[in-house]
C-alpha cells in the first residue's frame, strides 16, 4: 500500500505551467458525463503507459457474513464478458508484451495493465467492457474459489505473523468492518458462490463508482478522447450510496492478543494505535503522524532502532509506521523483535520508555528536519516509477482525498512544527486506544517471560 501520496515534481511543473500558456499541465483530472473520474499523469521517458481502474469498493463494504467477497470478485473479473470471452483480454495483454494484475483492500479494488503506449485505447476498451459485461459460470467460479483458498493458505494460514495480524485487526475494531480480513474468514470464503459475486458486482461496479488513472507517455487530450470513446459509452447502472460504516466506540481499555505457534523461532511484538486517516485527520495532523513515525521508527537513525538495537542491544529489529491511506481510520504501529535472552516483557518496557519520552518531550529540531528531508526526497525518488505515481493518485482518490491534496502534500509536510509532532504523540500514542500483539513459540514460555 502507498505510504503517502505526493508528487513533488508535479507540483513544480504545475507551478511553472501556470505561467506559460503552452506548457502542458503535469497532472490532469476530469470527470466524464457518466460520473467516471479520470486522472492523467504524463511521463514521457519511455514509450509505455500504466492504465488502472479503481472501484470505490473493498472488503469493508461487504455484507457481514460474506467476508472475502470483494477480493473473490476481483479474481472472477478475469473470467470474461459477453463481448470478450474468457482469456481474450489476458491474451491480448500478453501478445503486446504487457503486464497486468489486480489488488483489493478494505476500501478499494484496482485493476491495471502496463503496455506499450499504442495499445492504451485497446486496454481502455477492454476495461470499459468489463465494468458491466462480466459473465460467470459455475465451471469457472468453483476452481477460482479454490485458488483463493490457496491464496489464504499462502498469505495467512501458513504464516504465524499474518495470523497474528488478523487477530490484532479483529481486536482493534469492535464495530467497524476494518476488523475483517480482506481475504475473508476461511469458513465464509468457502461458502461464497457465483450469485454472491454477481450481486456484489451489480451493486458496486458502475462508472460512477470508479476512477481511471493513466500514467505514462500520453497527453491529457489523448486520454480524454479515448476515455469518451470507451468508458464514456458505459451507462451508470447503480446509485452510489454514501460509504457510511459503523464507527468505533471510544476505546477505554488497552487490548492484547497472543499468538502461539511452535514454528515461531523469533518472537516479536507489535502495537497498533487507532489514529485518523489522511481523509479524516484535521489539517496537518496526518503529516505530523508521518514525521513522528519517521523519527521514531524508520531506518537505523530512528529512536527505536538506535535505543533498542544499538545502545541497549536488546532487540534484533525495531521500528514504527503510520499507514494513513484509508477512508475511516489510520493505523500507527510500533514493533520490535527481542534478542535471545531478552523477554518480550522487557523489550516492551524499554519501548514504552522511549514512547513516554517522546510524548513528554517531543522530538528534536534536527530529527524533524532530517525526517522532512527524507520524506520529501522519497517522493522525488518515487517519481522515477510511473506505477507508484498511478497508485498514489488512485489510492488517494478512492479513499476520499483530492488531486489537490496529493499535490499539496510536500507543502504540508514542510509546515509540520515540533509542537505538532509532540501534540500528535500525546494525542495518539495512548495505550488505552491500542492493541498489542505478541508472537510467541508457546503460551507457557510467554507466561514465564511476563
Amino acid at each position: 500500500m502507498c505510504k503517502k501520496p505526493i508528487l513533488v515534481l508535479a507540483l513544480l511543473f504545475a507551478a511553472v505551467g501556470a505561467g506559460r500558456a503552452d506548457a502542458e499541465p503535469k497532472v490532469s483530472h476530469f470527470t466524464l458525463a457518466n460520473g467516471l473520474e479520470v486522472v492523467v499523469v504524463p511521463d514521457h521517458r519511455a514509450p509505455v503507459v500504466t492504465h488502472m481502474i479503481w472501484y470505490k469498493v473493498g472488503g469493508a463494504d461487504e455484507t457481514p457474513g460474506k467476508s472475502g467477497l470483494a477480493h473473490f470478485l476481483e479474481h472472477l473479473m478475469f473470467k470474461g464478458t459477453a463481448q470478450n470471452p474468457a482469456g481474450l483480454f489476458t491474451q491480448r495483454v500478453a501478445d503486446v508484451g504487457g503486464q497486468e494484475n489486480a489488488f483489493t483492500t478494505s476500501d478499494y479494488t484496482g485493476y491495471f495493465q502496463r503496455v506499450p503506449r499504442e495499445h492504451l485505447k485497446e486496454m481502455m476498451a477492454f476495461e470499459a467492457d468489463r465494468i458491466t459485461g462480466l459473465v460467470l459460470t459455475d465451471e469457472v467460479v468453483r476452481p477460482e474459489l479454490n485458488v483463493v483458498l490457496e491464496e489464504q493458505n499462502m498469505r495467512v494460514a501458513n504464516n504465524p505473523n499474518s495470523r497474528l495480524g488478523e487477530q490484532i485487526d479483529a481486536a482493534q475494531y469492535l464495530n467497524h468492518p476494518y476488523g475483517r480480513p480482506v481475504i475473508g474468514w476461511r469458513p465464509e470464503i468457502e461458502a461464497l458462490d457465483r450469485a454472491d459475486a454477481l450481486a456484489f458486482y451489480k451493486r458496486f461496479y458502475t462508472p460512477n463508482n470508479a476512477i481511471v488513472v493513466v500514467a505514462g507517455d500520453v497527453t491529457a487530450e489523448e486520454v480524454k478522447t479515448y476515455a469518451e470513446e470507451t468508458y464514456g459509452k458505459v451507462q451508470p447502472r447503480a446509485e452510489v450510496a454514501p460509504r457510511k460504516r459503523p464507527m468505533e466506540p471510544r476505546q477505554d481499555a488497552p487490548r492484547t492478543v497472543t499468538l502461539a505457534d511452535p514454528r515461531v523461532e523469533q518472537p516479536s511484538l507489535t502495537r497498533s494505535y487507532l489514529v485518523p486517516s489522511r481523509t479524516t485527520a484535521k489539517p496537518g495532523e496526518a503529516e505530523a503522524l508521518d514525521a513522528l513515525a519517521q523519527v521514531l521508527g524508520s531506518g537505523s537513525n530512528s529512536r527505536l532502532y538506535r535505543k533498542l538495537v544499538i545502545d541497549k542491544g536488546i532487540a534484533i529489529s525495531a521500528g514504527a509506521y503510520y499507514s494513513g491511506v484509508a477512508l475511516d481510520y489510520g493505523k500507527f504501529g510500533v514493533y520490535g523483535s527481542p534478542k535471545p535472552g531478552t523477554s518480550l516483557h522487557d523489550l516492551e518496557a524499554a519501548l514504552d520508555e522511549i514512547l513516554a519520552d517522546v510524548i513528554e518531550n517531543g522530538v528534536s529540531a534536527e530529527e524533524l528536519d532530517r525526517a522532512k528531508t527524507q520524506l520529501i526526497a522519497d517522493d522525488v525518488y518515487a517519481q522515477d516509477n510511473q506505477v507508484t505515481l498511478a497508485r498514489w493518485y488512485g489510492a488517494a482518490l478512492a479513499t476520499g482525498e483530492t488531486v489537490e491534496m496529493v499535490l499539496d502534500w510536500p507543502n504540508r509536510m514542510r509546515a509540520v512544527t515540533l509542537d505538532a509532532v509532540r501534540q500528535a504523540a500525546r494525542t495518539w500514542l495512548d495505550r488505552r486506544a491500542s492493541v498489542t500483539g505478541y508472537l510467541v513459540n508457546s503460551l507457557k514460555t510467554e507466561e514465564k517471560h511476563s
Partner: protein
Amino acid sequence: MTTPASPHSLLRRAAVALFALLACAAPAGATTIERVVSPLGIEAWLVHEHAVPLVALDFAFVGGANQDPAGKAGTATLVASLLDEGAGDIDSKTFHERLAAKAIELSYTADRDTIRGTLRTLTENSKDAFEYLRLSLTAPRFDTSDVEIIRAQVFSLLRRATTNPSDIASLHWWETAFAGHPYGLPVNGTFESLPTITVGDLHTYSRRVLARDNLKIAVVGDIDAEAVKVMVDHVFGALPAKAELTPVANATPQGLGRRIVTKVDVPQAVIAFGGPGIARKDPDFMAAYIVNHILGGGAFSSRLYREVREKRGLAYSVYDGLYWLRHAALFLGGTATRADRTGETLDVIEREIQRLADNGPTAEELAKAKSYLNGSFALNLDTSSKIASLLVQLQLDDLGIDYFSRRPQEINAVTLEDARRVAKRLLDHGLLVTVAGRPEGLESIGAN
C-alpha cells in the same frame, strides 16, 4: 544498515528470476547507452536522462558468496551488510545521519556470484553521495559493535528460516543440487559458519573481492559522460587493480529423479522443482528462454498456470524460471498447494513438463511467446533503477553494448524445430523435487 536478504526463500528466487528475465528482455527503445571509459581505464555504461533530478548508480563485483572462505559461509553477506555501517573516520551512527540528512540511499547486497551496490541521490547532493560511496568501498570500518548487531540479525533470519516451508524447500533443493559446491551453501551462512567469521575475515574478503578488474558499473540519470569519468575515478580509482578470486568449478544440478519431503506442520505444502538449464552463451539459450516462457514463465498465460491454477484451482502461484549463474545453468520452479492435493499437483506439473519435452510447443504458442518477448522490452526500461540494474546485468553476462539491437533478431530466429529440439534438451532429464509441509499422496524418492 543493509538488511540481509531473507534466506532460501522461493519468493526471493522468483524475484531473481524476474530480474534475470529483465536482463534477457531488454531492448533499446529510445534509450541510448554510452560506454564511458575514465582516465584510469574504468568503464561505466551511462544513460543520460535529465527529466528527473536524480542519479542512480548500480555496480557489481564478481565474487559474492562463492568467494566465502571454507567453513565461513555468510562472509559475503556480512561484508555487504556492513559496508554502509561507517567508513574512514566516520562511525556508523554519524555515517547514517549524514546520508539521511541529504536523503542519499546507499545499500549493498550479496548473492551467489556478486556483491552489488546501489546508490540513489538527488542531483544536487551527488558530490556528497559519491564521496560517502568512495569511503564505504575503500575504508570500511567493520567496528565490532556493528558486526555483532548484523551477525545477530542474520542469525535471526536463519532461525526463522528453519520453520518456514518456502525456505526449507528451497534450502534442500540447493544443497542437494549443488552438494559439495559453493552454490550448495546458503548465501546467509549457517549456524555453524556465522560465529567463526572474524573482523579480519571481513577485511580480507573486501581486499580480495572489491577490485577494479571484476567491477561492472552503470549510471542512469541527470549526469553527463564527463562527470561520470571524474566520478568513477574518484570513487573506484583507489581499489586494487586486480581481484584475488578463488577459482570456482563449473557445476550441473545433481539429484535428478529424487524427491525430498520435509515434514512441517502447515496446511499448505511448498514444492520446489528443477533441473539443469542452458548457459547464457549457449546458441540454444534464446530457444530455451522461449520454451521456459511457454512452460511457466509467462505470468497468466503459461501452461503450468493454466493446468495447475486456472483449470484445477490447485495453487495461487506456480512459476518456473531459467537461471544462469556464472558457474552453473539451471531451471527452477515452485508452487504451494493444499496438503491433500500435493501429489496431484506434482503429477500435473511433471506431466506438463514431460509433454513439452516430448512434443515441444505449438506453432501458435511459439508465435505468442515471441510476440510477448518483443513487446515487453519497453516495459523494462521505464525507470532509472530498472535500467541501471539491467545495464549491470548485461555487462556481467558479457552480451555487448549492442545487445538491445541484436535481441529482436535472436528472438525471431528461433524456429519451431529449434523450440522442439531445445524443449527436449532442457526438460527431458527428470526433476529434483523438494517439498515442505504435510503432503498427502507423495513420498520421498531416493532420500538419504
